[in-house]
């Protein structure tokens, strides 16, 4: 038996195992080490399985399994092609990086942190694999519910607004998605994506229903007319959680837009101008908002919106090159954005603030973080040695190929603004000299967050001869010395790993480009998808 026969019945494990492990993790009451091991082990397994899936689907093969072994059209199909396996692979990498970061900040010690992350991953795997829109809705909810928990758990000290806005907007979008699904079922008679292929081209009523579905998913992806919720909620939690969310929720929504437009609308060219208009506005308004912000994380969150615009150009063009570029951009962006959140998050967790005005001189103090940030920032702006260059270059090439000169112009202009606001973080946080009270405030923050034990450990590491007296004496002794606070290595490593990946994808772009091309072909011509689902 070949791999293509063995793998499909195993696909439900991608959802089942994280759910089971999440439940076990929640049941382990005291031992946090066991929870760490369970969580990292499951995520590593997810990564290994998704790499195997990428290898199997790299030639355009589509794996499909009818859950419960019912006939085609009756049961929920789980389908994996090049696009879903690639996105799953990148999301597993991000999951590992953000969990490592959360372990370093001690957030992951909370009893439900790991179980929430694992259930979130189960929801992601389900949403990426499912071939049925109602089931997509269910898995999006499976993905959202633990994130409500994570957001509220880690954001409580920042006030209730973040969590309230996040839950409200997402529930509204989910309800709208549900209404769209009801309309699709009423007009087309099925919610199975393979059976729905091209239904929106044949019948305008289905096209309207599909429009409602896409609108609902666009709210979740935060494209411009409906982006305000994201910029007000993502900064309102801890850096580790923001990183996890940045690579997952909006990106799964983008994946769903690609998939649904490819199948339900069969790439219909009539509506593409709407997508191009929306994406151009998203690119522009997102980056303008970023320039106006004052803290590292809120700048990066506005950037995310701008980049979502870039990614959706792919679906707005719907040509081979356009889709390839969009998919490459999606994969590149997930890595880079997470790396940026982690490197600035490490500073925020150590120095207690992400405010540009209150930081400075980090290039000398934290050279490793500076290099990590620099690599990711240049990649985000699209400079040559990194993956961002390949992504932006191919996007612009694809728009020019279709003679959409104004979209190309916006894309180039926005890159300049992107570089500008990355330089704003660079000059504000890394260049110049540190403010006088930087150490003092950082120490006060550390004491508040981790108690006095942390300070003693730090003081001893800095000057082993230092006699440890009562905490206040320690503090003043440390303050008298040159350095009291330093970003620990374990906070730097996750961000560095991701920065290394963006360099790898930039130098070895051929590999990821070929994979994106296969994924794009599967979307451009979904025959293989429909055939695989109907024969499974």
């Amino acid at each position: 038996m070949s791999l293509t026969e063995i793998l499909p019945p195993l696909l439900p494990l991608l959802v089942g195992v994280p759910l089971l492990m999440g439940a076990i993790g929640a049941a382990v009451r005291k031992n946090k080490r066991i929870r760490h091991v369970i969580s990292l082990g499951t995520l590593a397994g997810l990564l290994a399985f998704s790499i195997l899936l990428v290898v199997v689907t790299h030639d355009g093969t589509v794996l499909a399994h009818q859950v419960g072994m019912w006939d085609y059209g009756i049961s929920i199909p789980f389908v994996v092609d090049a696009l879903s396996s690639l996105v799953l692979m990148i999301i597993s990498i991000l999951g590992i990086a953000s969990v490592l970061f959360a372990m370093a900040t001690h957030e992951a010690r909370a009893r439900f942190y790991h179980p929430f992350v694992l259930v979130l991953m189960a929801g992601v795997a389900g949403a990426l694999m499912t071939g049925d829109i109602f089931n997509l809705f269910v898995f999006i909810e499976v993905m959202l519910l633990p994130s409500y928990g994570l957001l509220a758990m880690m954001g409580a000290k920042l006030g209730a607004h973040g969590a309230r806005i996040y839950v409200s907007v997402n529930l509204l979008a989910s309800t709208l998605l549900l209404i769209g699904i009801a309309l699709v079922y009423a007009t087309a008679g099925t919610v199975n994506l393979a059976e729905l292929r091209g239904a929106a081209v044949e019948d305008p009523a289905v096209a309207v229903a599909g429009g409602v579905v896409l609108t609902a998913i666009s709210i979740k992806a935060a494209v411009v007319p409906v982006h305000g919720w994201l910029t007000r909620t993502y900064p309102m939690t801890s850096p580790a959680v923001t990183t996890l969310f940045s690579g997952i929720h909006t990106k799964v929504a983008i994946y769903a837009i690609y998939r649904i437009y490819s199948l339900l609308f069969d790439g219909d060219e009539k509506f593409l101008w709407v997508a191009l208009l929306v994406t151009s506005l998203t690119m522009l308004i997102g980056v303008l908002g970023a320039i106006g912000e004052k803290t590292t994380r809120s700048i990066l969150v506005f950037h995310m919106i701008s980049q979502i615009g870039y990614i959706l150009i792919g679906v707005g063009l719907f040509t081979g090159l356009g889709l390839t570029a969009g998919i490459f951009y999606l994969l590149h962006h997930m890595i880079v954005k997470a790396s940026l959140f982690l490197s600035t998050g490490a500073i925020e967790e150590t120095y207690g603030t992400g405010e540009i005005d209150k930081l400075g001189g980090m290039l000398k103090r934290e050279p490793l973080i500076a290099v990590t940030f620099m690599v990711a920032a240049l990649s985000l702006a699209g400079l040559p040695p990194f993956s961002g260059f390949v992504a932006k270059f191919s996007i612009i090439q694809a728009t020019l190929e279709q003679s959409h000169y104004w979209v190309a112009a916006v894309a180039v202009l926005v890159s300049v603004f992107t570089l500008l606001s990355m330089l704003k973080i660079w000059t504000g946080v890394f260049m110049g000299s540190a403010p006088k009270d930087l150490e003092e405030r950082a120490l006060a923050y550390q004491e508040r967050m981790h108690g006095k034990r942390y300070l003693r450990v730090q003081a001893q590491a800095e000057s082993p001869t230092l006699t440890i007296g009562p905490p206040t004496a320690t503090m003043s002794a440390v303050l008298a010395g040159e350095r009291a606070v330093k970003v620990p290595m374990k906070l730097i490593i996750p961000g560095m790993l991701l920065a290394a990946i963006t360099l790898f994808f930039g130098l070895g772009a051929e590999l990821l480009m070929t994979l994106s091309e296969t994924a794009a072909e599967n979307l451009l011509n979904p025959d293989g998808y429909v055939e695989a689902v109907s024969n499974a």
Partner: protein
Amino acid sequence: MSIAIAVGLLTAAAVYLFMQRGMVRIVLGFVLASHAANLMLFAAGNTAFRDVPYIGSGEVGEQADPLPQAFVLTAIVIAFSITMFMVTLAITTTRDDDTEDEEESPAKVLAPGST
């Protein structure tokens, strides 16, 4: 037609409540909105068939479509859990359920003091 009217009324009431100030009113709006969505799912299964879709009870041609009923059943549970969470958010995090506080933007929360 009666379902369409009911959905319309529920949606209008929901949108009105979303725009209100207190968190509890917003939650009530979401309760109404999910009612509207569930009614639409029922309508999608063609309400001309009124018989219970149990095997052995009634003619096949007269029985209601069971698929949308399963959809609704799932959606009710999901909406219920999120409603519970929202109600908890309304009472646990601040003094009251007012949604128009001072600290409304990340700029004010993450960078207090700067204007």
